[in-house]
C-alpha cells in the first residue's frame, strides 16, 4: 500500500505546482506598463529568402509600422496606396458593423449563437489583402473578415448564421462555421486547431502538383496548445511546405488567459525557432504591420523558401461568443487600457494624417455600412431565421453522410419522416 502522504526526504524542499493566474480579475485596476510595446519602425526587414534563423530575433520583439503620430514608418512599411488603405479600412469597418448587427440578431432570438472579432479586424482583412485571391485559407472561427474581404455575399453569411432554407451548408453547422470553397475559405471546424495540419497537407499537395497557390491557417493562442499545432509545425518544417501558420494571440481563450498556453514562458512566435522555420511577431492591431508580415511570409512560401509562423498580438475586446460573459473572469478595464489601441481607429487616423480621409467621410461610411448589413440581414430573414420553420428540406439531414445513401440511413430517414408525420399530421413533406 502506498502512503497517501509521503514524508519529506532528507532536506529536499517539497515540490510545488505552479498554476498560472492572470494579473487582473473583475474589478481590478489594470496597468499594462509591464507589457513591452516597442516603438514602430525599429525592426529590420530581412529578405524573404533569408535563413529562418535571421527572423528569430523578431519572434520576441514586435513588428510595428504605425507610430504614435499615425504615420507609417520603418522598413516594414508596405507603402500601400491610399486607395488600398481606404479599401482595408472599409472592410474592417464592415466586419465590425456586421458583427454588431449579428450579435444583436442572436440577442433577438434569430439564431442560437454568434462570435464577434471586435478588436481583431485588422488581422483578417490585412492578411487577406496580402494573399493572392486564390490562396487557400484554413480559418478558425474568428476570421470572418477574410470572407468579407474576398467578397463573399453578406446575405449568404447571414443565411448560414440563421440556418435557414438558403443556408449553403443546409443548416448543419453551428453559426459562423462557414465554408466557401469558391472563395478559398476552408470549412471551419469546432474542434480546435485541426485546420493547422490540414493547411500543411493542402500546401504539400499544391507543391506536389507544382501549383503556385499557397495555404494559410489560423489558430488562437489557446488552441496552439493542441497536439495538432505540433503536428502542423513538424510537417511544415519537414516538407518545407508553402504555408503561413498564424497564431492570433488575443490573450483570452474563453476564460483562460494566455498563460495556460505557455505565454508566461515565451512568445508564441518563438516556437518557430524550435522547429527551425521563420517566425514573425506582429502588432495585430496595426493593419500595415499585419499586411507587411503576411506578405513577407506569403512571398517566402511562394518562392519555395518554406513556412512561416506569425504571432498576431492583439486583444479579444468582446466575449468569446454570445454564450460567454467575460465580466465574470476578467477586468473590464483591460479593453480600455489595451496599449495597442483599436485597429479601425488607428488605420482611420493614419489615412486622415495622410490627408486621404476625414472624420466626416468615416461617419458617412459607417452609416452606409450599417445600412448595407441591414439590407443583407433583411434579405436573409426572408429565407427564415433559426427555429421558425424555413429550413432546408427534411431529407437533407441524411444526405452527405456518404456520397450515396446506404440502407441503414435510408431506414433511419424513413423513421424520421414517420415521426414528423405523427407529430404534424398535416405535414406535406419538405420545406416547412
Amino acid at each position, binding site marked *: 500500500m502506498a502512503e497517501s502522504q509521503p514524508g519529506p526526504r532528507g532536506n529536499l524542499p517539497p515540490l510545488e505546482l505552479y498554476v498560472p493566474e492572470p494579473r487582473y480579475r473583475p474589478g481590478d485596476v489594470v496597468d499594462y506598463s509591464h507589457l513591452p510595446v516597442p516603438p514602430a519602425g525599429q525592426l529590420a526587414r530581412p529578405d524573404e529568402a533569408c535563413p529562418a534563423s535571421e527572423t528569430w530575433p523578431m519572434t520576441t520583439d514586435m513588428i510595428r509600422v504605425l507610430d504614435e503620430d499615425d504615420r507609417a514608418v520603418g522598413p516594414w512599411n508596405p507603402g500601400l496606396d491610399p486607395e488600398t488603405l481606404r479599401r482595408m479600412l472599409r472592410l474592417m469597418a464592415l466586419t465590425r458593423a456586421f458583427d454588431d448587427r449579428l450579435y444583436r440578431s442572436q440577442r433577438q432570438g434569430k439564431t442560437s449563437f454568434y462570435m464577434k472579432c471586435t478588436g481583431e479586424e485588422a488581422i483578417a482583412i490585412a492578411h487577406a489583402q496580402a494573399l493572392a485571391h486564390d490562396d487557400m485559407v484554413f480559418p478558425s472561427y474568428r476570421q470572418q473578415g477574410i470572407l468579407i474581404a474576398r467578397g463573399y455575399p453578406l446575405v449568404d453569411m447571414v443565411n448560414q448564421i440563421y440556418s435557414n432554407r438558403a443556408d449553403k*451548408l443546409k443548416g448543419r453547422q453551428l453559426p459562423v462555421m462557414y465554408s466557401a470553397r469558391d472563395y478559398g475559405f476552408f470549412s471551419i471546424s469546432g474542434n480546435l486547431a485541426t485546420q493547422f*495540419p490540414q493547411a500543411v497537407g493542402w500546401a504539400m499537395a499544391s507543391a506536389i502538383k507544382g501549383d503556385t497557390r499557397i495555404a494559410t491557417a489560423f489558430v488562437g493562442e489557446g488552441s496552439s496548445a493542441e497536439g*495538432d499545432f505540433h503536428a502542423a509545425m*513538424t510537417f511544415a518544417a519537414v516538407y518545407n511546405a508553402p504555408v503561413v501558420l498564424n497564431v492570433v494571440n488575443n490573450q483570452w481563450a474563453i476564460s483562460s488567459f494566455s498563460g495556460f498556453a505557455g505565454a508566461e514562458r515565451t512568445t508564441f512566435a518563438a516556437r518557430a525557432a524550435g522547429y527551425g522555420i521563420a517566425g514573425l511577431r506582429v502588432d495585430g492591431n496595426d493593419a500595415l504591420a499585419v499586411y507587411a508580415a503576411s506578405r513577407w511570409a506569403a512571398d517566402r512560401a511562394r518562392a519555395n523558401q518554406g513556412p512561416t509562423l506569425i504571432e498576431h498580438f492583439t486583444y479579444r475586446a468582446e466575449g468569446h461568443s454570445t454564450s460567454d460573459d467575460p465580466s465574470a473572469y476578467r477586468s473590464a478595464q483591460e479593453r480600455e487600457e489595451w496599449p495597442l489601441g483599436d485597429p479601425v481607429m488607428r488605420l482611420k487616423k493614419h489615412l486622415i494624417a495622410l490627408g486621404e480621409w476625414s472624420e466626416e467621410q468615416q461617419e458617412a461610411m459607417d452609416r452606409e455600412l450599417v445600412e448595407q448589413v441591414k439590407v443583407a440581414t433583411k434579405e436573409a430573414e426572408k429565407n427564415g431565421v433559426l427555429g421558425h420553420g424555413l429550413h432546408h428540406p427534411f431529407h437533407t439531414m441524411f444526405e452527405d453522410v456518404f*456520397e450515396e445513401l446506404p440502407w441503414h440511413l435510408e431506414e433511419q430517414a424513413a423513421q424520421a419522416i414517420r415521426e414528423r408525420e405523427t407529430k404534424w399530421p398535416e405535414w406535406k413533406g419538405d420545406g416547412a
Partner: protein
Amino acid sequence: MTEEAAVSLHDAPTRPMNMIEAINDALDIMMVRDPDIVILGEDVGYFGGVFRATAGLQKKFGRNRVFDSPINECGIIGAAVGMAAYGLRPVPEIQFADYIYPGLDQLVSEAARMRYRSAGEFTSAITIRSPFGGGIFGGQTHSQSPEAMFTHVAGLKTVIPATPHDAKGLLIAAIEDNDPVIFFEPKRIYNGPFDGYYDKPSRTWKGHPGGLVQEGYYKIPLGKARIVREGAALTVLSYGTMIHVAEAVLAEKGIDAEIIDLRTLVPLDIEAVEKSVQKTGKCLVIHEATRTSGFGAELSALVQERCFYHLEAPVERVTGFDTPYPHSLEWAYFPGPVRIGEAVDRLMKD
C-alpha cells in the same frame, strides 16, 4: 458499380500472391491509373513499409508521390485531409492499427464529417490502410482490432479483407471511393491463411483459392459480402483472420455451416446476412476484437431485430476477451478453435 463482373471472368490471367503482394499490386495499379494518388506514412518510402506493402513504389513513382512521414498520426491523417481538400486522393498507411489513436480527431471529427459539414464543398477521399489483429506476438500495442471504434462513426466506411484476391479488389474499390475508408489488413494472414492451430506449422497462400489473384485492375464493391461456403445448418458471420479459423473448425466438426465473410462492416451487406440466417435459423458471430461493444454486438442486434422469428437458438458471439492483448498468453486470448467449438456445440445441441 459493376465490379464483380470482371472477377468472374474465368479466363482472366491469375498469379499466386500473398496478401502483401496483392496490396502492393493494387497500389501500383492505382498509382499508374490516377496521378492524384499519393502514399504517406511511417517507413513507407525508400524502405517500403515495415510489412513491405509499399515496397518498390517510391522507386517507381518518385518521392513526390510516395514518401515517409514524421511519427505523428495526427499529422499523417490531418495532412491527408488537407490533401484531399486540394483534390488529391491520399492513401496513408498507419503502421499498426494500435497507433491510429493520436489521429482519431482528424479521422472522426474531420475526415468523416467533411462532406456533411461543408454540404459537399469538401470531401475526404482518403483510404487509410493499417495492419490489425494479433497472432504474431505483438503484445498489446501491436495486436488490437479496433474496428468497432470506426464503425460507430457516422461517415466512415470500414473494410477488412480475408484473402489476397479480396484485398486487391477491395483496396482498389476503397481508393476509388469518394468517402473516407478504413482498410484494416489482418496481419496474421498476410503470408498465409491461419486455421487457429498456432502450434502447427504455418501455411502460405500457395494452393489456397483466395491466393490466386487476377492480374490487372478489378474491383470488389464495398458493402458486398462473400459466401465462403454455402450451408444449411448454421450461419457464421465473420471477417478477416477469423474466417479461416471458422472454416477449419466447422469442417473438422463436419457441420454444414454457411460461412459469410462480411468484407465490409460499414456499409454492411444486410441482405446476405438476413438471407442466410433466415435459411439456417442459427447464427454465430466471430471476431477477434474485444467483446463488449464490439461489432459482434451490432451484428447480433441486427439479426435479432430482423430474423427473430427464424431463430432456433440465441445468437452466439465468439470474441477476444475484454482485456488488453497479452503477450505471453496471446493464444489464451485469441478466440481459437476451442472457444468457437464450444459455441458451435451450444448452437447445434438440439
